């Protein structure tokens, strides 16, 4: 299911309402558990409106799934946490306003790791999402629901959020395209914060062209986000197959220990395919890569420990029966409302920000981030893109890693450096390990989404 295909269906006389009905029918009978809240009534109403008045806007009548961490007016938004059960936002995120303005039809909210803290979508209070390629495996995370919904043909487009790989990891595991924009390109207004200085909302689709289209819709300046900037180009228009001017850098550190052989082979295959189409490549080094995971987790957990303080049950969310004194009341709500991984990260983040440890952890991590950012800047001086495996291995089994938090953190080794540096990155399918898809990560310069989209597009055309 892709946007061109749907437009063709509309041209052949299929109504938007029929399409939306069939989508809900499919989701309701799906084994994936990709959606956690469906917006059936508003979606059908909007579909009928489009049928009556014609499909207007860049996404007129096109269905889309939204990660449950993005605020949607009138549609429950929980971050898949028990603590936000029943929370119905009175406002739309900036990206939702953009989608509505361009005529998209919001189907519902997609599953995710609780508060986006995870790599497998197993920590959701709604239960795990299943990988469409193999139902006993995870879809990746934290935006696993969005990736699985696209891969499973339930919706052509979806939005996720990527703090340390949460768009690219599930895109890789589910065999779809997912992009993490440059920090600042897409407004975070309405994205429930996990780690503010790292995260961006990013698009998912079955192909590069649809990802570019969706990025065109959601990107651009928003005065409500102080870290938002004005975009420089129209991404769909910039798409072409020519990569003869593209210089690829291949960082050895991303092909290190723990990378599955099949993954390594598939990604090198991808690089060679691009070389065949005229691109050149050199092997380069990003020397501080080995510190990325520690720096990333310290920053993310520290910011999260503060961001998640607000869930005290006073203004919204979970409240237990009878109140006690305020301290006990808050403490019991959080004990019951947060899952184990969330508690673990809050406690660690609280520790990392503590008096006496701030310099050792948070401040040190921000300094290491400077070094990592400089690595990328210097590597991208002589190259325009870097190519690496998105994930070190294909999708693992549900339950396989959930007992070992640290082992699961290490799976993010190739995605977190990108968030630390704030550069854009896209994951495109580049082959299979058995029946499981493999993702290739293409990283670009700040605000040069056009080049990574073009490289991914050329590669995708070559695969077909």
């Amino acid at each position, binding site marked *: 299911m892709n946007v061109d295909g749907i437009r063709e269906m509309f041209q052949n006389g299929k109504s938007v309402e029929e399409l939306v009905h069939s989508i809900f029918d499919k989701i309701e009978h799906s084994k994936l558990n990709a959606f956690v809240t469906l917006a059936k009534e508003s979606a059908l109403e909007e579909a009928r409106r489009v049928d009556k008045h014609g499909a207007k806007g860049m996404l007129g009548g096109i269905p889309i799934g939204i990660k449950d961490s*993005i*605020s949607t007016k009138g549609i429950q*938004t929980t*971050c898949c946490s028990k603590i*936000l059960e029943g*929370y119905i*936002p*009175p*406002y739309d*995120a900036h990206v939702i306003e953009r989608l509505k303005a361009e005529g998209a039809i919001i189907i519902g909210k997609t599953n995710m790791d609780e508060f986006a803290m995870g790599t497998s979508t197993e920590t959701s209070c709604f239960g795990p999402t299943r990988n469409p390629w193999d139902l006993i495996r995870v879809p990746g995370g934290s935006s696993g629901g969005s990736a699985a919904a696209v891969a499973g043909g339930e919706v052509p487009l979806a939005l996720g959020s990527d703090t340390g790989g949460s768009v690219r990891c599930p895109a890789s595991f589910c065999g779809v395209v997912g992009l993490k924009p440059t920090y600042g390109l897409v407004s*975070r*207004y*309405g*994205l*429930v*914060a996990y*780690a*503010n*200085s790292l995260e961006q909302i990013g698009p998912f689709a079955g192909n590069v062209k649809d990802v570019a289209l969706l990025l065109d819709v959601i990107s651009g300046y928003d*005065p*409500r*986000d*102080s*870290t938002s900037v004005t975009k420089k180009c129209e991404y769909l228009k910039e798409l072409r197959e020519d990569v003869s001017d593209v210089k690829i850098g291949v960082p050895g550190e991303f092909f290190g220990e723990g990378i599955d052989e099949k993954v390594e082979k598939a990604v090198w295959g991808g690089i060679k395919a691009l070389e065949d189409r005229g691109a050149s490549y050199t092997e380069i080094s990003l020397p501080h890569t080995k510190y990325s995971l520690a720096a990333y987790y310290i920053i993310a957990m*520290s*910011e999260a*420990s*503060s961001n*998640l*303080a*607000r*869930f*005290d049950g*006073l*203004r*919204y969310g979970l409240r237990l029966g009878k*109140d006690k*004194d*305020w*301290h006990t009341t*808050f403490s019991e709500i959080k004990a019951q409302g947060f899952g184990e991984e969330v508690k673990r990260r809050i406690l660690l983040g*609280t520790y990392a*920000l*503590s*008096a006496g440890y*701030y310099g050792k952890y*948070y401040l040190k991590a921000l300094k290491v981030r400077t070094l990592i950012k400089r690595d990328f800047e210097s590597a991208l001086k002589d190259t325009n893109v870097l190519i690496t495996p998105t994930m070190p291995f294909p999708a693992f089994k549900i339950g396989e890693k959930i007992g070992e938090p640290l082992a699961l953190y290490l799976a993010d080794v190739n995605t977190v450096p990108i968030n630390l540096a704030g550069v854009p990155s896209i994951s495109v399918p580049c082959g299979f390990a058995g029946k499981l898809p493999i993702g290739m990560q293409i990283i670009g310069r700040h605000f040069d989404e056009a080049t990574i989209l073009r490289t991914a597009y050329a590669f995708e055309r070559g695969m077909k």
Partner: protein
Amino acid sequence: MKDVIIGLEVHVQLNKLRSKLFCSCSTQYHDSEPDTHTCPVCLGLPGALPVTNGKAVDNAIKVALALNCNIEEWTMFYRKNYYYPDLVKGFQISQYDYPIATNGSISLETEGGERTIRIKRVHMEEDPGRLVHVGTIDKSKYSLIDYNRSGVALLEVVTEPDLRTPKEARLFLNKLKNILEYLDVFDSSLEGSLRVDANISIAGGKRAEIKNISSYKGVEKALLFEIVRQNNLVRRGVKVVQETRHFDEVRGITISLRTKEGEEDYRYFPEPDLVPITIVDRVDDIKKTLPELPDAKRQRFVLQYGISDNHAKVLISELGLANFFETVATEVDANLSATWIADVLKGELNYRDLDISAFSPGHMVQILQMLKKDTITENGAVQVIRTILDEGGTPLDIVERKGLQPKMGAEASGNITLRVIEENPDAFQDFCKGKNEAMHFLMGQVMKETHGTVDRSTVIELLNKSKKEKLQNASDNHREA
């Protein structure tokens, strides 16, 4: 009082701003229903983001300049992490390292002479919501929360522990308020516009921090209570513990609040949703907009108008009063103006809990002009002022209505009576013949001319004297003839 050491953290709302510090909700919530001036940002809804009100930063720089502070090159916001039901995000956006300004001072005139109170730092932060306790804080079964106030821009002014008495603390607050009002960044008349945390220790003991005192008088009362409490502990041989206490305004006592985080628990870190602010390049422009401040105005009043320093001190205590004086002093004698405004009008206003806007400078000019021309007595002038404040009206009407013209001296009334006699020879003739109506007529004429400011008996005396002289002249003429 022995070795009392007091430091203040004063939180003032920058309530002349139209909108809150990080969102565009209106600051005009004082007469509104609870929770009607909120939005996703100031309610801390998931996903909402703050954006800094640029004018709040400018106003904070103004204050920092007026308090003689060092202005930092750049500044940034931090998160101060703690829990309280009035705090919507589980943290307060405040400042920590790199506050907007440091190392300022305010000079105070105390009973012991002039004292300089050092200002440690000035920083911006957001106001929490307002807690309403059902009953008193320690007895209340639950709390009610109004977030209209949540997110209003606050300025925190932190002093060094330079204050020595509760009275000094109050003088300091008055002076600070005075400066802030001159800068047009603060309206102290609005409820909740000022809150103070006071640190106090006695004779080298541990300090107690009294949180959230919300009135000027409350600060003095809370500190006096603390001195007695801590002295009693020392007398009984009990050590004063370092702790946070709450001031109960109604009962006038402080009570321990044990569950709040201490400074080491706040886990400050830079607010990742906001970006740094370079202030050094804004300072010069803002400097140009700084108005004359109270101390400078006081000196100028003495020099320019030749009034006493004591009068100048009273006149500059409120910007409105100072402006009122200048308006009046350009029309009538400056010294007379200063005396009547500072000594009389100010007292009458205070007595009625009114401010200077209740009186028109034009009326003051008229009253002073009448005093100068002696068409009103000092007592009469005071009565006119009181009447205007209590009942309204204009000075001339009130003088007329209440008959406040001074009684005329004998000479003046004599002259007027003689003129009336000259102008009305027939009536006088009749009067000399003993006609009563003629006497009433002449009396009426005199009263009309003098606006009733002469005694009837004086006029009768004069008329009789004139009659006698006339009869005498007539008999002399007769003899000569």
